[in-house]
């Protein structure tokens, strides 16, 4: 059975280590914050200018001066700090952010990512995505394995305009966990009950399967 978006987020949360500074993109990545394992302290960065992002505010306590990079009202945790956007991207560019999680429309077997533009559709802009993917030392992509038409999003080469090159390290989809290696996508784990054949069939890029492929552990 394929994972739902909450389970994808939960699986990614297992990649967190104590003391990590983490940037979570919009969509499924944001949900990762809900599954931080016990005993693990991470600091969430929001690239508009905040370290120490907390949950959404209690209704009635929204502060228009306090938003995240998705423009949502948020809160802070004790020890938080505000800074300007150049400082924010400075810490991203200098590799101080340990992990970046973001969504994608396509990932190629060499780690290229496309997630900002679809030719023929209104282009909204790349926001901070290009900065993040060009600089982050560890990028995990959270996405569905196939697009709504059923076509693979894990490709030999991206068709869509690129956001960045050679940058994705790991991919967690509804079907599998894969790492990006010099040889291609290496299958690390599969969703409970999902066959290796199904993953093969839905992965257009080169897929490497070595030995037993365990099932993803889902707590819920």
């Amino acid at each position, binding site marked *: 059975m394929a994972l739902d978006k909450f389970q994808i987020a939960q699986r990614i949360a297992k990649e967190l280590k104590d003391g990590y500074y983490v940037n979570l993109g919009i969509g499924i990545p944001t949900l990762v914050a809900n599954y931080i394992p016990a005993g693990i302290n991470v600091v969430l960065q929001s690239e508009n*200018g905040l370290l120490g992002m907390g949950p959404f505010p209690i*209704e009635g306590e929204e502060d228009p*001066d306090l938003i995240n990079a998705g423009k949502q009202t948020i809160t802070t945790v004790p020890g938080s700090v505000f800074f*300007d*956007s150049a400082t924010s*991207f400075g810490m991203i560019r200098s590799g101080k952010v340990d992990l970046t999680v973001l969504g994608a429309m396509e990932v190629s077997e060499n780690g290229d990512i496309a997630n900002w533009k679809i030719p023929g559709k209104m282009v909204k802009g*790349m926001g901070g995505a290009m*900065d993040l993917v060009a600089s982050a030392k560890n990028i995990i992509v959270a996405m569905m394995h196939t697009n709504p038409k059923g076509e693979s999003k894990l490709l030999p080469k991206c068709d869509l305009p690129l956001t960045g*090159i050679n940058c994705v390290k790991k991919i967690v989809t509804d079907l599998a966990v894969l790492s990006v290696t010099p040889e291609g996508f290496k299958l690390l784990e599969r969703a409970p009950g999902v066959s290796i054949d199904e993953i093969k069939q839905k992965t257009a890029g080169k897929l490497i399967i070595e030995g037993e492929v365990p099932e993803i552990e889902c707590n819920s």
Partner: protein
Amino acid sequence: MSKVFTTAADAIADIKDGSTILLGGFGLCGIPENSISAIVEKGLKNLTCVSNNAGVDDFGIGLMLKQKQVKKMIASYVGENAEFERQLLSGELEVELIPQGTLATRCMAAGYGMPAIFTPAGIGTEVAIGKETRIFNGKEYLLEMAFDADFAIVKAWKGDVMGNLIFRETARNFNPLMAMAGKITIAEVEELLPAGALDPDHIHTPGIYVHRIFQGKSYEKRIEQRTVQPKK
């Protein structure tokens, strides 16, 4: 020589049609509401606006777009604006999209007197087309130029008559960077205080970067995405 102006209209009085203006704010957070109203009121035309976003249909830079005052928009993300989309598709509006960190750092570069900076953002993408690249320590970077803008318009929380500014929470965002980058920088503040009222250790923008300052009126501070948890 006082930097203090009484009204937004006075502070922006010498901005001319065709000017390039940096506008602080991220989404609708920390935007110079009063200055934007004054620019709309004055009816300036053919402006090139540099701002991370382009407002929404009826607020922020969206108000200037509605009056067709903007010839060119330089931004990183322009999602939430139907009129923007219409003008873009009809060819009335020119748009240049640049990565958010590049936008921020090109402002900072101007304020620090650095003519250009190197950033890896955009390497291997269409952003890099026609731009110089260079490898340092095995990593490829794009050469990006500092902004050269006639005016910067920013919004701060508190300011003093010397032009020193303090921002609040994430309303800081691009404001201090753009404040450094304008040939003429106009700051509107929620509270304008006498010299010495701000702790000199807590100031985000030193007054040397601010040419004009005024206390804004009736800030709406509209929230773009109200996300909350239910009361318990």
